[in-house]
């Protein structure tokens, strides 16, 4: 109620996503900044991060983050809301991607493809993945915890095997095939209505393909994040959370466990399918091996680092997982420059960086180096692993948990609780 924020006169007001005007305005401004990010605009470009994220090279990484985030949102529904461990999330991403290529891809002598437009292949990717999720669910809902983890792990290998059985869909192993582009067509006509994968001219502005793709993906992410946030406060969402907190208690309270777990698998797989299809299409061509265990672990890492159960946490986690490698590379690069130029801190950075034979330091600038000194790619794997350990030990609620702590500090003012 106005002026009495804790006085709820209906369940609607209690479970509002944006209860206050401040929150609405803040979210509105944030979205506006996100939309304007890729363009060279005076004020927006002064904001930290936004300054360089809008640049073309980084923008591709941001686009990858967005496709990743869609699938991660799905895993969050399964793991964060329903509490069902899954390390087979890439399998459903793969199902989505291959549905997309089968429905939307071009056929040739040894490849299948129906060449249908995006408005068919994208939903189809989600729906087929969801159906596969439902099909898998009976096996999965019977087991809990670690055992469920193993069952889902099995899916990844089944997926890899299937890709070899059907090269007509997946393309030759190690190579893959071309995915349909992000183009909006009514049917199979020659020139698309909107082409997201070519540079072009919109209204009065020049716009390149990355910027176009970014806007398309951003719109889809916003839509799906909004749906996920709303799902969490719906009847289904409450049922899933009841199952997560104690499945037996939930069932005794009248929550049909089997049905809701199946629902969770279906919705989660739908998200994965959409994310997988968009990722593949945006990448252009990817080999079947892409849908591997490492990818699935990355999804779990995104949830752990970002904060399980929260949409904003998932988005933060996705951003972190996809871009952290790049940040580490940038930092190492910057340190190298500093060390070479010789300045105030060159001694310190020189201690870390090894520029070649005989130079001390434990990070090699050479991309191809193996062993010690560490190549940059190994360094960021190590940092990544350490971070997961750090979050599990000290901040189980992830980045979102840190935000909650900061918020509660001020909410409790002038007390501590």
């Amino acid at each position, binding site marked *: 109620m106005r002026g*009495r924020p*804790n*006085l709820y*006169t209906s369940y609607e007001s209690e479970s509002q996503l944006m209860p206050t005007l401040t929150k609405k305005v803040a979210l509105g401004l944030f979205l506006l900044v996100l939309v304007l990010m890729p363009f060279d605009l005076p004020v927006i470009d002064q904001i930290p991060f936004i300054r360089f994220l809008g640049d073309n090279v980084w923008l591709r990484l941001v686009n990858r983050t967005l496709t990743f985030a869609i699938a991660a949102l799905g895993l969050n529904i399964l793991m964060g809301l329903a509490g069902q461990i899954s390390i087979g999330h890439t399998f459903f991403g793969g199902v989505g991607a291959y549905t997309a290529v089968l429905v939307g891809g071009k056929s040739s002598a040894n490849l299948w493809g129906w060449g249908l437009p995006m408005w068919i292949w994208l939903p189809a990717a989600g729906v087929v993945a969801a159906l596969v999720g439902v099909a898998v669910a009976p096996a999965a809902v019977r087991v809990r915890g670690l055992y469920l983890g193993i069952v889902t792990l099995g899916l990844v290998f089944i997926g890899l095997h299937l890709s070899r059985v059907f090269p007509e869909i997946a393309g030759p192993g190690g190579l893959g095939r071309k995915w349909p582009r992000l183009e909006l067509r009514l049917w199979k006509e020659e020139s698309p209505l909107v082409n997201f994968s070519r540079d072009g001219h919109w209204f009065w502005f020049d716009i390149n393909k990355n910027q176009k793709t970014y806007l398309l993906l951003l719109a889809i992410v916003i839509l799906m994040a909004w749906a996920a946030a709303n799902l969490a406060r719906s009847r289904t969402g409450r049922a899933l959370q009841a199952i997560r907190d104690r499945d037996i208690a939930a069932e005794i309270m009248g929550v049909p466990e089997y049905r809701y777990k199946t629902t969770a698998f279906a919705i989660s797989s739908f998200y994965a399918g959409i994310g997988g299809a968009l990722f593949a299409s945006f990448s252009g061509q990817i080999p079947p091996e892409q849908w591997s265990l490492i990818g699935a672990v990355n999804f779990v890492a995104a949830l752990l680092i970002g904060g399980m159960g929260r949409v904003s946490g998932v988005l933060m986690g996705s951003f972190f997982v996809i871009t952290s490698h790049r940040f580490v590379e940038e930092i190492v690069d910057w340190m190298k420059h500093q060390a070479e130029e010789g300045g105030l801190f060159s001694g310190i950075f020189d201690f870390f960086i090894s520029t070649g034979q005989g130079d001390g330091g434990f990070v090699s600038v050479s991309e191809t180096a193996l062993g010690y000194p560490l190549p940059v790619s190994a360094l960021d794997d190590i940092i990544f692993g350490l971070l997961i350990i750090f979050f599990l030990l000290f901040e189980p609620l992830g980045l979102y948990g840190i935000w909650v702590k900061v918020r509660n500090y001020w909410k409790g003012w*002038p*007390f*501590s609780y």
Partner: protein
Amino acid sequence: MATTLNAAPSSAAAYQVSTLPTQMLGHAVTMPDQVVMREKDFGVWREFTAAEVWDLVLDAAHGLLALGIEVGDRVSIQSENRPEWMILDFATVAVRCITVGFYPTNPAAEVEYLLTDCGSVVHLAEDQEQVDRVLGIDQAAISNVRKVLYCEPRGVRGYDDERLMGWDEFLAMGRDHRAAETGAVEALMSEARWDDGMTLVYTSGTTGPPKGAMLTHRNVAYSMSLFRHPAIRKGFMPSSEDEILCYLPLCHVAERIFSTFHVAEMGLTVNFAESIDTVQANLREVQPTLFFAVPRIWEKLHAGVMIKANDSSPFKKAWLAVGMRLAAIVGREKVANGGLHTTKSRILTAIGRPLVFRALLERIGLRRCIWAGTGAAPIAPEILEFFTGIGVPVYELYGMTENSAIATVNVPGRMKLGTVGEPFGGLELPDSHFRIDDETGEIQVKHPGVFAGYWNKPEQTVETLTEDGWLKTGDVGEWVDGTHVRIVDRIKHIIITSGGKNISPSEIENSLKTSPYVKEAMVIGDRRKFLTALVGIELDTVGDWALRQGIPYTTYRDLGEKSEVLELIQGVVNETNKKFASVETIKKFRMIPKELDHEDGELTATQKIKRNSMEDMFSELIEEMY
């Protein structure tokens, strides 16, 4: 529903006598969408508009008629505060019957006494617990009770007793009756007379069995006219915009006036707290604008702040300490100025409010509070000073059931700590006469709010009134600065030591109870050589203290018997002894080995100590000290 309203005289003014139901009808007509009640139901506050409430009142009133109730019959209610309580109250008064409230904690034996004493015809028992109390009584003993209504069907459904009837069933019956005999209730309402009894309020009975004091429409109207008088409000008038939290027992005159009479008078919003234990949480949600509490609640709010402050992180603790210092200075300034701001306190508040006070008040739930009161028991001045300091001036007032709570009041600008304020007459308010008897020091009042008498107890009524119609309150008071009144004690409690000295035990007990560690204290010494005391600790605060000191304990009794705790309480006793003359000092004390309870007969329903039964119960402890 609109047709029903039109069938009735269209405004409250059409009725000769303004009673609670005519006032509620007035709100239903003039502001039908005004929210007058809120009840927390499954986690959200369900709202009742004035029109909805009136509709329910009419249903209930017709329900009573359908049960064959007659003018002057008694309807009793034993329930926690909830909309049904008030609705049945209004309905009862509408059909010219008399509402009798029981405490939800009244044990079965007392319920039997009360039901037979008032001769209740219809009884509302909230839930299974209360229904069991009534059904446990021999039916022949309470043959006057025709129907027992219940609000919560859980556990009662399977009961087989033709007296039982669910609240919904009762309302449905009322609706049928209403359709058949439209206007019957309104006709009865218009027949109401000023001197009709409208409620029996049972006194707590520290000495004898409870007595039912009868209040009339005239008493209530007079009482409300004074509480609405501009002279005691200074600058603001309560209106329909205001919010109230209803949590003290509605059968007590204080909450009855504060909630039921206020909502009838101005149509404000009454928020029913979930229970007395959730008051602090509910306060935070509701943020009432008017708040009345007994000292125990103020002490709890104060102790809550202190405990939480202790648990804060170092930075917050330091920050709070600064705020508390500011509050102390502001409190002293304002108290010295009769409760109003001085330039100094204004400046300090301007600093303290954004720093600490506003957040603190928000956490307590009093951020929007513009008037706060305390009464029904003595309160420590330190606590009033604290709340005044952070921006909620708490006005102490004094009254009792028998005078419709009209005796003395502290008003903004003339507040005096340690007193219960000035007689209403001294504030140039009409018809209110007040005196302190020269001989006995007893406070006596005479005004239209003085009750009609005790139900079925003519001798005791005569005893309470002087020949010329003054009400003998039984409280000893004294003048402070010629204008304000300080309450010394109940006449009956005054101790005369074997040395012949008159001592007021309450003053000493209250001084002991200002310590957050002491919950109960009873001073003993009548016809004895020296004073002793029984002390009961406050489990929350002493438990917290013990935890910090690393003292392990198991039960209340175990904690009370720890030598460290005895030392702690000895310290409190020593503090108190310093304030009093040597004959008034406590030479020895013993810990009460259990938490006192209404059910066990040590306390009255209002948590006052029953001295006689305490002396019997703990006679061994007492004799040990002499």
